[in-house]
């Protein structure tokens, strides 16, 4: 019993540093963000002395929270959020990225890993090649795509004899810009998925394949009836984490278009995402933090809902 107690305190001591950091940088902000989302007209103006004085001089009937003031508790932030055209664009862009790029990436990664798993000689070389994007900086990759698709000197335009076609520079259409972002997301997302799928494939007992071979099973049936079901826990894990990651897409957009923009010059918010939108709300001093917080909450709810649906659906086809 005493032993057990001592172990408990040891565990507490070991966990303390992590818990402390998590509390300061994760739990506390989440709680605050949640509260802020429900404070009507919450203004935070610590950086603006004039505005601060003005704010502090308003009648006491206003509430104060974390150095900002608000006019009441309710869902006004959410109403403002859904009235904002930018947020609706962000919602549409994000949804498109999530529901198009993730399935494409997962399928391509699966096919590449199965192909890689079936070769022996140069597998290591290919593994390295496919894994490189994972260890490369997002922004650096974005810059590469930026120059690849440049309107005048981009390799793609030169290669396909399309100089003058704007993909990501001014005048680019939503479709073209989104195409580049898709290419980027798929390419960037492949690495980790391939590594996970490969390790999953290698843990599948070879005898299943020998048994299938003896029964003259065609390759595609082996893939669909044996490989995919046996890999389904990995596929579920990858799908859920990829959906979460894709909902939070932000840095890749910045990487492709340049600092502070979510689209080509002249069309700043062409490919703005939810996280981009939230960041914009927090970025400007004196601006409504409440709306940004509400945006975060909406994002959180969407991810929660999608993940719940995935977990529910997965019960039918994931075999542990």
């Amino acid at each position: 019993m005493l032993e057990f107690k001592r172990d408990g305190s040891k565990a507490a001591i070991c966990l303390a540093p992590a818990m402390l950091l998590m509390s300061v940088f994760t739990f506390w902000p989440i709680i605050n963000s949640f509260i802020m989302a429900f404070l009507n007209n919450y203004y935070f103006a610590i950086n603006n002395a004039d505005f601060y004085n003005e704010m502090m001089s308003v009648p006491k009937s206003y509430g104060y929270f974390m150095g900002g003031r608000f006019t009441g508790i309710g869902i006004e932030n959410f109403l403002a959020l859904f009235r904002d055209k930018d947020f609706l664009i962000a919602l549409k862009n994000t949804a498109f990225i999530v529901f198009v790029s993730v399935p494409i990436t997962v399928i391509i990664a699966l096919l590449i890993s199965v192909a890689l798993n079936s070769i022996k000689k140069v597998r290591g070389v290919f593994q390295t090649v496919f894994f490189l994007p994972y260890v490369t900086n997002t922004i650096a990759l974005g810059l590469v795509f930026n120059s690849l698709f440049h309107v005048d000197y981009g390799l793609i335009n030169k290669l396909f004899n399309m100089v003058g076609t704007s993909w990501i520079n001014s005048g680019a259409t939503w479709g073209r810009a989104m195409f580049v972002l898709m290419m980027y997301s798929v390419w960037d997302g492949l690495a980790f998925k391939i590594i996970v799928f490969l390790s999953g494939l290698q843990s599948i007992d070879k005898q299943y394949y020998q048994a299938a071979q003896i029964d003259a099973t065609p390759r595609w049936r082996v893939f669909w009836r044996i490989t995919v079901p046996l890999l389904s826990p990995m596929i579920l894990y990858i799908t859920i984490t990829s959906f979460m990651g894709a909902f939070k897409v932000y840095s890749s957009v910045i990487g492709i278009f340049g600092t502070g923009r979510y689209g080509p010059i002249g069309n700043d918010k062409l490919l703005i995402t939810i996280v981009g939108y939230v960041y914009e709300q927090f970025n400007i001093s004196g601006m409504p933090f409440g709306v940004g917080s509400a945006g975060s909450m909406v994002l959180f709810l969407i991810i929660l809902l999608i993940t719940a649906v995935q977990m529910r659906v997965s019960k039918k086809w994931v075999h542990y």
Partner: protein
Amino acid sequence: MEKKKEEIFENSDERQRTVHHSIEVRLENLTKEFSNKSGKVTVAVNDFSVTIPAGKLIGLLGPSGCGKSTTLYLIAGLLKPTAGSIYFGDEDVTNMPPEKRGIGLVFQNYALYPHMTVKQNIMFPLENMKMPREEALALAQEMAELVHIGDLMDRKPNQLSGGQQQRVAIARALVKRPRVLLLDEPLSNLDARLRLQTREEIRRIQRETGITTIFVTHDQEEAMSISDEIVVMNLGLKQQMDRPQAVYEEPINLFVAKFLGNPPINIFEANLVGGKLVMKDGEVIVEGFTQEDQEVYVGLRPEYLRVSEKGNITARIDLVEHIGRDTMILCEIEGYDHLIRAIVPNDRIFETGEIVKFDCTKLFVFNAETGERYR
């Protein structure tokens, strides 16, 4: 469900489907070498020739690492031989891929697809043959009935016991009516009671289907109890092939004599002097050898020893074990440092320390170097 079963068994044509057309399997000078990364070559199967008669149940028996599983995989086609040929009947299948050979293979750990039900597992080979679903279902059910798992069709493999999984694996191997059924250590994953039951089951299924069956095992009892013939292997070489009792009674060499038998055979050194077999304590056991004088090994199965006043093997009893119907006595012979085991009837009481005399109903004499049998 019940009704379906009846339908299948009422129709005699349908029932005919379980009966297989038997085929002979012939291995000629089969050799398989493996080389590891440093280039070292291991010969797993060495110039192995054997003819397995059609419709028989054959046990490939040997210690682990003797090449018996490799031989099975060569017959299956999952491994390519380095040299030699494999014939199914008159057909040379040496270079034929496994899926064209028409074999059924039951893996040691069964390799049942864990995400499919029993029914789906058994039907899987039929799907590849593009058999209509109704027909496939009926055939799968029939196979399941044959191996007595007809009521477990909707379970997943992890909801079955080891023995049931084994039966599913056999049903899956049999459902496409293979020409040859191969079983890799079929009983090694089962507990003792189930092993006994399953080996009789395998025997029954083999008899009912009449399919040429080859199974691999390291367990002599398993091989002896159900095989029509056994092939004893060691170090990649065929040692002997015969009916189990014949191999036991007339082993061709020292290895086979030592490998078969439980409790194991007694082996002790002796000398051939002028055609007489002389033990270390100077007693002559038998005469009439034509070989030149040399040191030899004598092999005596425990049941070959008989207590007799006129016997010429003198021994002192060290330990008496009662094993039910018989008594096993462990005794010491002068000049030998290991004990001799004898199984004797319970007709008298033996005491530790007592001196007894044995004669033997039968004995084997082997060349001390080559293990070749003289008598």
